[in-house]
């Protein structure tokens, strides 16, 4: 579903490499944690998948598209097949839960009657069917993130990307959120989640791709977060601010 072939990225000519020679493949229906400290290249990897930026070197393929040769006109087609969730939810403050989720379908030109039954279905998937008329500020952080997940899923994408989705949430809520992602994964959606939450990674026991300084240092099925002693040390060191997805 997603394949990186010897991908390197740098943001400025002559600058430091954000990713170096990354080769990794994520199959259809897989659930992958991308872990590593801030600035290790997790977000950069996700940005490449939705062609928020191109690879400097190497080839990225997503759902049958070769992103290296994709014309700008085709980029929206790619993005319709990939849902994205962020740490900061990014909901529209003036719209209700229902409207936030429906917005995606409206933008894509879905027919009204279709929106009327697809949105409640999707809200049910994340357990928010009773809060459709609430505004985002009336919801808890966990509930807001569920709205964001519903919004990412309402268009039934093949891939769901989650960039630190539990970064603003307490451990209990975090587990609920990843539980939802896990459920979504079981219906056949490929899920890639970037995180540095050791507790979550250790609880869910999925494939773990570990990055350090833009290089994959570990790729392990049913992995834990930190079998490398150095990693713990690294994560406590002051790091330059990571480049977040805009």
């Amino acid at each position, binding site marked *: 579903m997603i394949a990186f072939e010897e991908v390197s990225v740098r943001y400025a000519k002559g600058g430091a490499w954000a990713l170096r020679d990354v080769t990794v493949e994520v199959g259809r229906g897989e659930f992958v944690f991308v872990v590593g400290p801030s600035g290790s290249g997790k977000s950069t990897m996700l940005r490449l998948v939705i062609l928020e930026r191109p690879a400097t070197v190497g080839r990225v393929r997503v759902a049958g598209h070769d992103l290296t040769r994709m014309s700008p006109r085709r980029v*929206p087609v790619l*993005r*319709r097949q990939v*849902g994205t969730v962020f740490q900061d939810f990014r909901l*529209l403050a003036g719209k209700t839960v229902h409207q936030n989720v429906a917005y995606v379908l409206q*933008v*894509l030109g879905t027919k009204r009657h279709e929106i009327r039954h697809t949105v409640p279905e999707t809200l049910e998937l994340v357990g928010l069917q009773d809060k459709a008329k609430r505004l985002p500020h009336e919801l808890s952080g966990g509930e807001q993130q569920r709205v964001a997940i519903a919004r990412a899923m309402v268009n039934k994408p093949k891939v769901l990307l989650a960039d630190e989705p539990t970064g603003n949430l307490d451990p209990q809520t975090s587990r609920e959120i990843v539980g939802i992602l896990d459920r979504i994964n079981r219906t056949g959606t490929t899920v890639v989640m970037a995180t540095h939450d050791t507790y979550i990674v250790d609880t869910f026991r999925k494939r773990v791709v570990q990055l350090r300084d833009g290089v994959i240092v570990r790729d392990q099925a049913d992995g834990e977060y930190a079998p490398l002693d150095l990693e713990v040390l690294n994560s406590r060191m002051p790091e330059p601010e990571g480049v977040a997805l805009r």
Partner: protein
Amino acid sequence: MRPAFLLGEVANGLRRNTSMFVSVVLVTMVSLFFLGSGLLAQQQVDTAKGYWYDKVQVSVYLCTADSADVSACAAGAATAQQRDQVRSDLDGLDPLVENYWFESNEEAYERFQDQFRNSAVVENIPQESIPESFRVQLADPQKYEVVAAAFDGAPGVESVEDQRELVDKLFAFLNVVSVASVALAGAMVICSVVLISTTIRLTAWSRRRETGIMRLVGASAFTIHAPFVVETVIATMLGAALAIGLLWAMVSYGVSGFLTELLAGESGLVALVGAADVWLISPLLLAGAVALAVVTSWLALRRYVQV
């Protein structure tokens, strides 16, 4: 994207940015008003030209008692015989002369008094000083030289004047007005362009979350840009409509009303632009407004709204 959703987005945008919207409307109005004024001044020149050129073209002034300094008038005022000579010469120039008429001293003095009724000059100029003249309409106005040569220096003829030279001065003035208006319009159009792109930049900023989500879920560039373009087109078209209204008011109350009354009964300069001329340039102004909106917002969106 369905039209209803697009309109909803547009209404949202207008609500959020009312003051900028109003300023775009007003700046567009002023720039198109100047552009329209320039075009109308140009039309005034054309209208008046046709009107004047159809009338008097060459005036053959006869000698008066005061014009002894001109050699042809050394004998004093033109005699009836000299006058008849000129008349028969004019008849002889038949293919060149379309028409002519004689303006007697009384008629000329009356017209002079009327023209300068507000001036002290009337008291100081005796009736004898106002020359009689033949007003000649040419078959081809370009052939002025031939006619002038035929009468220049003839006995009893003080001077031959190409009237177009006089009205051309008026037209030159109107042309300056027209060019100045269009130049001002140009400056104002630059203002509009800058203001529109600033507005789009601000709107894009206030709507960055929406556009961010649109991009993320795979909305086409068209979908993302359409609300901005539609808003801008609405603003400039409103500005154009107001400009057309102002031009119409200026022409119907200012030109047709006030100026016509002022000039009525005078030299006959009654061929003025009217409301019909405003309607004639209206489609041009509207098209200009739409083009301004589309081109400017396209440029601004390329710069400020990433897809």
